[in-house]
């Protein structure tokens, strides 16, 4: 029997989907890209913007119409706001937070689906849900599964409770790529930026046990994964919620040591950090260990202290400046990425200009710039969205042009250099492969050799553009790193 999964939103959902797939497949379902042939249909939802939410409603209405004709079961998980959850409960057969993934087989069983065969006339599958449960359930959860109804009772709190998230992390993921992997290290957020609904959809900050993380990362390195990203809403708050846990810097150090002992076969990234917790010891660890990639994503959001206060970002420009100074001092070859929101409630032209000046000051290689739009569930949703759309567009354009100017100058300085590149895909333009450097600079090379996908290669840079570089293949690296050269 087949299942189909729609994954919306960020890398966190992508990573979670690898675990969702594991659980569903261990029940005997097989994946299909064609939803018409699936009996189990699910969505990992995203509440960050209205568009993905509209997509969820769109899909479920289509699926529910098909229910008269065929035997299907639907579920939704991921980032769901309390308001949407109420509505989803009426539309989907199952609505559960990601932290309860391990209980999904049990939920299905209670629903009368003992195995995929129960959804089908044909009898090709031999899987048994008892085996599935014993595979998926963790020791700690077996107890609560004995009486699941208590968990789904009407008095269940509306805001997500993250304490069961460990269950999700115990599920062995089914990585979607053979050379790139995401490793969740932390879930939830306690920062409550006024423009963001994540603290209401993902719940409180919870850190995954470091031993599990290190284990998963080491296994990935041993299995030849080239790019490993430690994932969380607030990765550098790692450990703050637990008394006896490593700090983020200590976790990086342990991964760094593991990398050393395996001759640094991979690039290990992390996203997203919060400037408030970007301590010098985190940057020292990145500087010290070759396996820790020299690329840092440090969301600024605004270059104006007053806007930062109104955004409830809990850092000011001076604090941010200190972190960038530490990065430039300790890891001069690092590339710097950021996130920006333009046109936040009340943002004046002068305040926007402060953001623009920050681009000159911090010399970003890449910036993900968004025009502000009130997000349901966030604090600022109730504030007046008083910056006209045309002004937002204009600010987006000016900031993008500034980024391109800075990035183009940086990329130009790379001409003639030989850089290590991870080849990731074929380019739309035939005859080109696309990848990225350790600093995540998009790099194209002229080659049709698809066998290079997933490999480290050495590239001589011959062309530079605003936001990318291109070059000639020098050599294929046999799963070994060349010494880090400045991007």
């Amino acid at each position, binding site marked *: 029997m087949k299942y189909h999964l729609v994954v919306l939103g960020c890398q966190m959902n992508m990573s979670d989907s690898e675990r969702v797939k594991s659980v569903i497949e261990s029940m005997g379902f097989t994946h299909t890209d064609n939803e018409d042939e699936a009996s189990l249909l699910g969505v990992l939802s995203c509440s960050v913007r209205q568009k993905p939410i509209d997509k969820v409603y769109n899909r479920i209405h289509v699926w529910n119409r098909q229910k008269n004709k065929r035997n299907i079961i639907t579920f939704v998980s991921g980032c769901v*706001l*309390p*308001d949407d*959850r*109420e509505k989803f409960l009426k539309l989907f057969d199952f609505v559960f937070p990601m932290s309860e993934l391990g209980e999904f087989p049990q939920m299905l069983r209670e629903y009368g689906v003992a195995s995929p065969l129960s959804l089908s006339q044909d009898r090709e599958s031999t899987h048994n849900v008892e085996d599935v449960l014993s595979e998926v359930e963790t020791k700690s959860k077996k107890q609560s599964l004995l009486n699941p109804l208590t968990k789904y009772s009407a*008095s269940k*709190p*509306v*805001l997500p*409770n*993250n*304490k069961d998230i460990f269950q999700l992390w115990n599920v062995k993921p089914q990585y979607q790529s053979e050379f790139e992997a995401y490793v969740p290290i932390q879930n939830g957020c*306690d920062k*409550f930026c*006024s423009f963001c609904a994540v*603290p*209401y959809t993902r*719940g*409180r900050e*919870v850190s995954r046990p470091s031993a599990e993380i290190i284990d998963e990362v080491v296994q990935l390195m041993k299995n030849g994964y080239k790019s490993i990203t430690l994932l969380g809403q607030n990765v550098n708050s790692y450990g*703050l*919620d*637990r*008394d006896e846990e490593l700090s983020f810097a200590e976790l990086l150090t342990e991964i760094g040591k593991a990398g050393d002992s395996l001759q640094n076969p991979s690039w290990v990234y992390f996203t997203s950090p919060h400037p*408030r917790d970007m301590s010098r010891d985190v940057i020292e660890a990145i500087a010290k260990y070759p396996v820790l990639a020299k690329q840092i994503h440090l969301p600024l959001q605004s270059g104006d*202290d*007053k806007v930062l*206060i*109104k955004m*409830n970002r*809990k850092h*000011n420009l*001076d*604090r941010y400046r200190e972190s960038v100074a530490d990065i430039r001092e300790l890891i001069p070859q690092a590339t710097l990425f950021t996130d920006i929101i333009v046109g936040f409630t009340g943002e004046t032209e002068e305040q926007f200009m402060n953001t623009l000046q920050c681009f000159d000051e911090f010399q970003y290689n890449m910036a993900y710039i968004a025009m502000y739009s009130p997000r349901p569930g966030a*604090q600022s949703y*109730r*504030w007046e969205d008083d910056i006209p759309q045309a002004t937002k567009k204009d600010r987006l354009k000016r900031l993008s042009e500034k980024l391109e100017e800075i990035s183009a100058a940086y990329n130009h300085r790379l001409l003639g250099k030989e850089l290590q590149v991870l080849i990731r895909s074929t380019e739309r333009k035939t005859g080109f492969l696309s990848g990225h450097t350790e600093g995540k600079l998009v790099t194209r090379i002229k080659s049709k050799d698809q066998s290079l996908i997933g490999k480290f290669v050495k590239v001589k840079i011959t062309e530079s553009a605003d936001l990318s570089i291109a070059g000639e293949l020098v050599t294929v690296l046999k799963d070994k790193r060349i010494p880090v050269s400045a991007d």
Partner: protein
Amino acid sequence: MSETYYHNMHKVLQVQHLTEHTFVVQFERKEMPFIPGQHLVVGKKGDKEFRQYSIYSGLNDPHFEILVREVETGLVTPKLKQLKPGDELEINGPMGYFTVSEQRCLNHPIVMIATGTGIAPFNSWVKSFPDMNYKMIHGVRKAEEAYGIDRYKKDRFVLCTSQEKSGNFNGRVTDYLQKAYFPSNTLFYLCGNSEMIFDAMELLKDKGLNTNQMFAEVYF
């Protein structure tokens, strides 16, 4: 922080109406630890709307208190205003970083600046650390909004009233700040509406003080 994640239903014990629009909700604490200055995410049981409220009570109080000003057009505060003893609240937290360390209190003069219910976290600090060396500047429209004024030492408390002459200072908080002198190593904690916070920060910067000495909790 401990390894326990609090996410509970708490029974309302009492609702005390201080003015027509401001009230204190007292509810079960259930021995939840917190750091004075932190806030809770609060909603009526079963409701889908939640808001953040600074903890108003002190560390040694057996119950929790929040100080709430009703926004008449608001989604949550009118419902909180109707609460009765025995009603249940869904509480998430405690969380937040608007806290003050002993080290800071020992080494620096502390000035707390609040408008309206922005006094809530400072009340928790003062109740929890009675020996704290502080100066509190509270901006309100009328003296009736000087919530819990008896709790603060008279020589440490300045009530700025903007709409009547009943306070220690007649005018806005910012008018007071303009005239006041602060030692250069003072730490400033500001809480309440963002406009006041921005104006106060500008004024303090004009006096040669650094933004690194200023910490803010914005309510709206």
